[in-house]
C-alpha cells in the first residue's frame, strides 16, 4: 500500500464513519425479541418480523416519524427464557431501542416483563397470548406491557359464552393438556365457567405427546358430555379428534386457537380437521387491507396460517409510531402516556384503532375483534351458526 492510498483510505473511512454516525443519530430504533429458529412456533416469529419490516417500509416511505427514519433490530431468543431476558437488556441498554415488539413465546414475556417496566421502555406484544403478560406488576404501578394479539382469557370467555348460549348443550366437559399452557387455560375455564354459572360435569387431562386419548374420551362419553371445551396445543388436539373417530364420539368441540396451526391440520387430516370450532383474529376471508399485506408478504412467509402475526405486528409498529409522534420524542414515560391516550386514530391492518389503550386497558384487540373459525377444504374460514349470531358483546365479559 502506497502512502497516498493509505491517506485516501483513511479519508474515505473517516467520511464513511461521519456519514453513518449522522444517519445513526437520526434513526429511531425498534427492537424485536422472539423465537425465530428453535421451536415449532418460530414460524410465528418469522411472520411477525415480516409484518414489522413491512410497516417500517411504509412509514419510512412516507417520510418517517418526526422526520426520522425507523430501523429494526432483531434478536432471536431461541425460545429460551434466559436468552430472551439477555436480549431484552441488550436491546434496551446497548442498542438503545425505544420499544420492543414480540416475543413469540408467552413464557418468555412473563420471564422478562419486569425489565420494560423498570427501564420504562414500552413493550408491545404481537404474538404470545398468555393472559398475564399485560397485567401490571402491582395494582397501581405504571405498566409498560401492551399487546396487539389474542388473549387467552378473552378466547375462553368466547368459548364459554358459546357453550352457555347453545340450546343443544346439556352437559359440558373440559379437556386440557398437562403443560403450563393447558393448566393456565383450565384455570381460566374454571373461573369464567363459575362466573357465568356453567357447571362442567367432567374434567379430563392428557399429555402433550399422547397419541391416544380414547380412555379420557370414553369417560366423557359415559358421563353424557355433549360439548367439550379443549385447551391444548395444535398437535395434541389433532390426536384428540383422531381418537374421537376411533370410538365414534363427536361432541361439539370448542378449542383454543392452536387448532389454526398447520401441525393440527396435518395431524388430524383433512376431514377430522373440520370438527373443532375456535376463535382467531383473521380468517382466510380477508378484508381488502389484509389481502394487500398478505399478497405482499406471501412469497416470504413459511406458513400461511402465521399471517395473523404479521398483521398484529404490523399494527403494533403503527401504534408505536403514532405514540412517538404524539409524544414528540422517544422518552419512555412520555411514550407510555401517549400510548394510553392516543388522540389520532391509527389505520391498521386489523382495524382502525381509536384509543386502543388506556391506563387500565392494555389490549388493542378484544373479543369483539375475534372471528369464529373452522377449517374447510384446507382453508381457515369464518364460521357462523345460530348460536354465533345470537351472541352479544356483553356475553364476552370476563
Amino acid at each position, binding site marked *: 500500500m502506497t502512502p497516498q492510498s493509505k491517506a485516501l483510505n483513511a479519508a474515505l473511512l473517516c467520511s464513511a464513519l461521519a456519514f453513518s454516525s449522522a444517519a445513526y443519530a437520526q434513526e429511531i430504533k425498534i427492537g424485536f425479541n422472539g423465537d425465530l*429458529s428453535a421451536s415449532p412456533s418460530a414460524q410465528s416469529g418469522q411472520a411477525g418480523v415480516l409484518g414489522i419490516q413491512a410497516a417500517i417500509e411504509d412509514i419510512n416511505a412516507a417520510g418517517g416519524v418526526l422526520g426520522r427514519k425507523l430501523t429494526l433490530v432483531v434478536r432471536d431468543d431461541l425460545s429460551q427464557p434466559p436468552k430472551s431476558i439477555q436480549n431484552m437488556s441488550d436491546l434496551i441498554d446497548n442498542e438503545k431501542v425505544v420499544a420492543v415488539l414480540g416475543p413469540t413465546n408467552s413464557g418468555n414475556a412473563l420471564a422478562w416483563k419486569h425489565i420494560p417496566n423498570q427501564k420504562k421502555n414500552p413493550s408491545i406484544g404481537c404474538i404470545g397470548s398468555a393472559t398475564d403478560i399485560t397485567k401490571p406488576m402491582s395494582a397501581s404501578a405504571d405498566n409498560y406491557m401492551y399487546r396487539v394479539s389474542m388473549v387467552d382469557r378473552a378466547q375462553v370467555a368466547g368459548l364459554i359464552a358459546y357453550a352457555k348460549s347453545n340450546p343443544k348443550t346439556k352437559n359440558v366437559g373440559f379437556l386440557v393438556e398437562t403443560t403450563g399452557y393447558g393448566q393456565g387455560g383450565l384455570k381460566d375455564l374454571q373461573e369464567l365457567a363459575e362466573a357465568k354459572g356453567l357447571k362442567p360435569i367432567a374434567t379430563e*387431562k392428557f399429555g402433550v405427546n399422547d397419541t391416544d386419548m*380414547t*380412555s379420557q374420551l370414553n369417560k366423557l362419553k*359415559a358421563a353424557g358430555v355433549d360439548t367439550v371445551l379443549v385447551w391444548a396445543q395444535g398437535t395434541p388436539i389433532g390426536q384428540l379428534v*383422531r381418537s374421537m373417530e376411533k370410538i365414534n364420539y363427536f361432541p361439539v368441540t370448542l378449542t383454543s386457537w392452536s387448532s389454526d396451526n*398447520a401441525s393440527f391440520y396435518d*395431524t388430524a387430516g383433512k376431514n377430522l380437521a373440520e370438527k373443532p370450532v375456535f376463535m382467531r383474529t383473521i380468517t382466510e376471508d380477508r378484508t381488502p387491507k389484509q389481502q394487500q399485506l398478505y399478497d405482499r408478504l406471501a412469497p416470504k412467509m413459511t406458513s400461511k396460517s402465521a399471517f395473523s402475526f404479521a398483521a398484529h405486528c404490523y399494527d403494533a409498529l403503527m401504534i408505536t409510531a403514532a405514540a412517538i409522534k404524539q409524544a414528540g420524542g422517544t422518552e419512555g414515560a412520555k411514550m407510555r402516556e401517549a400510548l394510553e391516550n392516543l388522540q389520532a386514530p391509527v389505520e391498521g391492518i386489523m382495524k382502525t384503532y381509536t384509543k386502543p389503550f388506556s391506563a387500565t386497558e392494555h389490549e388493542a384487540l378484544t373479543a369483539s375483534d375475534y372471528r369464529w373459525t373452522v377449517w374447510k377444504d384446507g382453508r381457515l374460514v369464518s364460521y357462523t351458526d345460530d348460536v354465533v349470531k345470537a351472541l352479544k358483546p356483553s356475553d364476552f365479559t370476563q
Partner: protein
Amino acid sequence: MLDVYLQTLLSGLAVGGVYALIALGFSITFTTTKTLNFAQGEFISFGAFIGVTMLLLLSGLASTTTAVPSEAASAWRYPAAVIGAGAVAGFMGILIFLLAVKPFAGKGGMNWVMSTLGFGVMLQSLGLAIWGPAPVMVPSPLGDNVLRIAGAGVRPQELLVLACAILIMVALDLVMRRSRIGKAMMAVAHSPQTASLMGINVNLVMIGAFALSSGLAGVAGVLIAPIASASLFMGMGFALKAFSGAIIGGLNNPRGCIYGGFILGVLESGIGLWQAQWREIVVFGLIILVLAIRPAGLFGQAAVDKV
C-alpha cells in the same frame, strides 16, 4: 362397557408395541456390553427423518413444510424407507460405539453415560440444522381409515407397529437362542474375557450389538412417525417410557423387556380410564416398587456373584 375395556386394551397394546420395540434395543446393548445407549431417543427421531427424506426422494414428490403427501408412502416405498432408516441408524450406532462407548466400556466409572447423552445432543442439533424444528406428518402405507374390532377402533398403522414389534421380537429370540451369532452374543454378555479366550471376536460382537440396537431405534422411528408425526423432539418421551418398560421387565432379559413395554402401554391406557393426570405418578411409582421387590425386573434373572 366391554367395548370400552377392549378399546383400552387395544390402544394400550398399540402404544406398548412402540415401547417394546425400543425397550428391546436397550436390552441388546446392555446384555452384550453392560452399557446403554442414552441417545436412543435421538436415534428414533433421526431415523424418522431419514425415513421422511427417503420417502420424498424415492417418490420424487415435494413435501409441504409440515406433511409428506400420502402417495409418497404407497407400495414398496414405505418398506424401503423403514429398511433405509434402519441401515443409516445402524451405521450411526457403529459410530456411537467406536467414538462414545468403546473408549469407556468395561472400565470403571460411568463415562459412557455422559458420552452417549452428548452424542444424542449432537445428533439432535444436526437434525435441527438439516430438517428444522417443525413436526412433519408422515402418511401410513395402509391408509388412515379406522378399523373396527368388536366396537373398538384402531388405526392400521397401530396394528402394523404391533405386528412388527412381535415379528422382530420372535426373529431376534430365534437368532439369540439358535444361531452361532446369538450364542456368541450371549457368551460375550456372560463374560467377555472367557468369550475372547474361546475365539469369539468380542469387539465385533459389541459393534454388532450397537448397530442392531440403533438400527431398531431407526426402524421404530419410521414406524411411529405416521402415529405421532415425525419430530426431532418425539424420541425422548418414547425412549424414557421404553427404558421404564425395560426396567420393569428386566434389562438383562430381551423377552422381559418386550413384556415390560406392553405392560407399560396397557397400564397407561388403563389409568386413563381412571385418572389420566396420575398416569406418570403411577407408572414411575410402579418402577420404584418393582425395583424394590425384584431389583432385576419382573422377568430378569437375579445376578449371583460367585466368589
